[in-house]
């Protein structure tokens, strides 16, 4: 059963990284998450949105799309860009792999998403964009009024 959902979009400006975290955290708060669960979600969202901005769109400006769905005690988050896409998904998902060492990127973004969320799915097409789907299951669910 789909309990609630939302869609958000904003331009790929780095000040929107914190905005996206607040929005998803606020939406997730319906699931009465623990502080730790909420922090996990915020961190994963921050990784995916940052990637859309700095890797997907690089120096150009585009739109970042965030969608959330609550289905029972699960939160599904989709983060999309219409940016340059990823050639080899297996390679970029390796820990420490980064194409932007000059920005002091650690190459740990995907590893963090994988570790902090229960599911991670990456789809991408070169020249078209990237689609990240993540799911978090909330353990102590008791829908807040």
């Amino acid at each position: 059963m789909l309990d609630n959902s939302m869609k958000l979009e904003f331009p790929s400006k780095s000040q929107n990284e914190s905005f996206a975290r607040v929005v998803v955290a606020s939406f997730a708060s319906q699931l009465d998450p623990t502080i730790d669960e909420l922090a996990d979600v915020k961190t994963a969202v921050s990784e995916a949105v940052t990637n859309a901005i700095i890797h997907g769109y690089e120096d150009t400006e585009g739109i970042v799309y965030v969608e959330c769905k609550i289905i029972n005690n699960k939160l599904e988050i989709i983060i999309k860009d219409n940016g340059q896409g990823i050639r080899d998904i297996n390679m970029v998902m390796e820990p420490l792999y980064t194409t932007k060492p000059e920005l002091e990127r650690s190459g740990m973004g995907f590893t963090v998403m994988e570790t902090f969320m229960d599911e991670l799915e990456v789809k991408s097409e070169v020249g078209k964009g990237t689609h990240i789907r993540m799911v978090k299951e909330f353990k102590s669910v008791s829908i807040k009024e």
Partner: protein
Amino acid sequence: MRLDLTVEGKNLVVKFNGELDHHTAQQIREKIDEEYRRQKLQNIILDLKGLNFMDSSGIGLIMGRYKICLNNNGKLALIHVNSRLEKILKVSGIFKIVKKYDSLSEACHIF
């Protein structure tokens, strides 16, 4: 993000207050490096007590300062690493090269 930079002998102590992400990391990095060079310091101590949020941009920032210290025969230490920060730092394996301490005096002791 508010940053407090203080000098203790040859050590630069950096206190974070706020959220560390890609947006805030760039500025922070520049401020730390400028102070480190200008004051001709050797070691850097990052006090993470007031850090409310950190994503993998923080890992990059810590690794970057670690390298700068290393090139200058210095060391980098972390203090006040809470369980949230510990969780993300563990993922990165950073504790193999950077040590964490409970207090400033403990960290200063090892330099």
